[in-house]
């Protein structure tokens, strides 16, 4: 029992440490995508415990850089149906358990 628990912990740790940002769906142009992805990674790492503040950081930075009305959702399990402006959507996984969805719609 203990061993399996340890294993699980190790797995979880390992996943968190060794997991990379994986883009699930995106229709942004290449540069924008990379920039956004890096921003998301930074924000999630910085506010590892608080999704809301991470989302806030991402949203505000995106608004400044790319124009108004971005929306950000961070979580570990959710379903969504959104309307987004074409070429302004990024949906990615990060950290082994987080999913981030960023889109623009004014």
């Amino acid at each position, binding site marked *: 029992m203990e061993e399996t628990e340890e*294993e699980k912990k*190790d*797995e979880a740790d*390992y*996943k968190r*440490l*060794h*997991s*990379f*940002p*994986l*883009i*699930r*769906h995106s229709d942004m142009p290449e540069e924008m995508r*990379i920039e956004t*992805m890096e921003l998301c*990674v930074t924000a999630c790492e910085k506010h590892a415990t608080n999704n809301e503040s991470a989302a806030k950081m991402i949203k505000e930075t995106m608004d400044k850089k790319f124009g108004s009305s971005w929306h950000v959702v961070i*979580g*570990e*399990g*959710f*379903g*969504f*149906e*959104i*309307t*987004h*402006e*074409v070429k302004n*959507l990024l*949906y990615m*996984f990060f950290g*082994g*358990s*987080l*999913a981030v*969805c960023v*889109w623009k*719609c*004014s």
Partner: protein
Amino acid sequence: MPPKAADKRRQGQGASSGGKAGKAGKAKKRDEETSETGEDGLTARAVVRSPDQLRLTEAELKAEITRTLTADNPHIPRDIVRFSFIERAYKLVDDMDQTTIHFTLNGYLIHKDSDEGRRQSIRSSTEAEQAPVEEKEAPVEASAEATEEAETKDEEPTEEAEAAEEEEREQAAEAAEEAKAAEAEEPPLPKQPEKKLANQFNFIERGSATYQYPLREKGLQTDPAPIENFSDNVNQWCIYDAYMEELERIEKAKEKEKAKPVVVKKEETHSGRKLSYVEPPHSDSLSKVAKAAKIAERMVNLNTFDDIAQDFKYFEDASDEFRGQEGTLLPLWKFQSEKTKKLAVTAISWNPKYNDLFAVGYGSYDFMKQGHGMLLVYTLKNPSFPEYSFSSESGIMCLDFHSEHSHLLAVGFYDGNVAIYNLKKASSQPSYKSSAKSGKHTEPVWQVKWQKDDMDNNCNFFSVSSDGRIVSWTLVKNELVHMDVIKLSADGTTMQGPEGLQLQMLGSGTSFDFHKKIDYLFLVGTEEGKIYKCSKSYSNQFLDVFEAHHMAVDSVSWNPFHLKVFISCSSDWTVKIWDHTIKTPMFVYDLSTAVGDVAWSPYSSTVFAAVTIDGQAHVFDLNINKVEPLCTQLVVTRKKNKTTHIQFNPVHPIIVVGDERGLITCLKLSPNLRKMPRLLLRPLWTVQCSWVSEHGWGVCNTTSASLQDTWARKADVSTGSSKHPAWTSTVPSPFQERTDTSNPQELPGQGGAVVGYSWALSVCGAGRDFSAVTV
């Protein structure tokens, strides 16, 4: 003397009259006083006279002398001269102002009827109370003005100084009183008009504004950005799965690239730590579809040309039975391409391995109009579009598929080059090409043919060209190496060139063919109409010469079954069949127009077909009719379109004919044309046969039913050698059977092979008795 004293008095008076007004009275008194004192002093009243005093008589003393007082100012100069600019001269100024101003008082009273007075009255007219005040003002002002005037006037001296003096005093007092009275009245009044006073300069204020433009409203709205919907569901396991997948993919990619040992962690496939950016693989959608598209294309084509495909497979012209010996050619597919519409078909060759694949070379026979060339490889399964297409700068004149490496195509160009195309490689250029320094021909290459691999297992092929050289090309280490095999020297044409050189004219080869069995033996047809029998081993001498035609030999071909027989065709309208041991032709056919090409059929040694430039195809069967063609049919309908080449399909009963417009027509041979000599061997028959056929007998038991009646016959053939001593052991059965393993209903080329029986015996004969070995 009292009169003297009186004189004094009078003088005193006179003096005082000359004096000023105010002192006149006092002067009198002084005179009296002096006179009195004078008298008082001298009690005697003695008149003292000065010595220089006038002595006047009494009469004179009594005379009254009038003296007047005037107001004239004695001090005024009366001789002032001023320059007058009008008269431009000095003028005496007459009237001098005698006025001496003793007192001035500036008043501020204005006449009521003057401008200012009227203005003020208007201003104050609104205030009714002030009206009576104004009226008081008016008389006061009037009196004030009057007094002012009076003062000025009165200041001038009157007749009598005293009177004037008094009057002046009085009047001045009066004026002063009146003025005072007026002033008394005035102070309360001026307060009101002071409010209404305009400024000193009587300005009128007036304002103006610039023109203001009217405002206009204008609105605009940009298009909203395009929006899309997106939805997904995410859970922990979903994320986990995605990561696993991604890691696996990375693993595979890594393994493919390098053979690095992947660090395998606990779960199956964790790769090394990498926080780098990984993108999901997006495949090239077009390449995935390519294969499917090809299959779909073929299906569509099959559907479009369904009836043709059915004809190809199953249709047998039933009317052949009634036609006697004659047959027909049923047109099937037509192959043409946009790019080749202006090019002529110069060569056709079937692929030995894939029976539905054939290559067509395009170029131009016209010497003047030489353009580019095309090489298209078509398949019967897709009549609309070639499978492979290559283009070249120079027109293609001939081509040949390699018998074993069926992806290799040898091609000869109009510019003398030869090249090898590799169909397996997806390039548009030939894999190997000759060049000027590697020994290309100097004239168009008319024919190329593959040979067996040489001893080093290198592919090699031969080419014949108008420059009189027959060159063997070998593919050595990815290079084409050439070797001149033979030079066609025209007989008796050695010339004396300059400086005593012996020049040798070379004939130009136009076609050649290699013997099927005898390796070194080959025939070359030339432009002069001769056919040389040559050997590969002898490079400067021919084995034999046939005076074949009057014009260029267009095609020469060995009979596939008969070892000794070959056929040749020429532009001199003839097709001739020869035995290579005999100098004269066995059969001569005059086809009334230039013959473009001739080909033996692969299934019968007696059947051959020829195309003439009038667009007709002729099919002969010597077994049936030695003189006339079994079928003469117009293949190409357009005028001015010459048919250039013809080829039999090695397996199917079809022929392809090419023409000058780049069109390939595929025709099916009717049953009458496909008659194969029946082969029945019974022990009872002794057969005299002057020819032997080439192929060895084989035991063939045909088990499957023939598809068509006229095609395959059931035959039990046993080896000839044992039963028929007349036959040599080398008598072969030209039996090539392919068993049909698949459903005969299946469409050609898919899956199993189609049944094809090709067999022929040596039946061709000319000039001698021949008896067909029929079974």
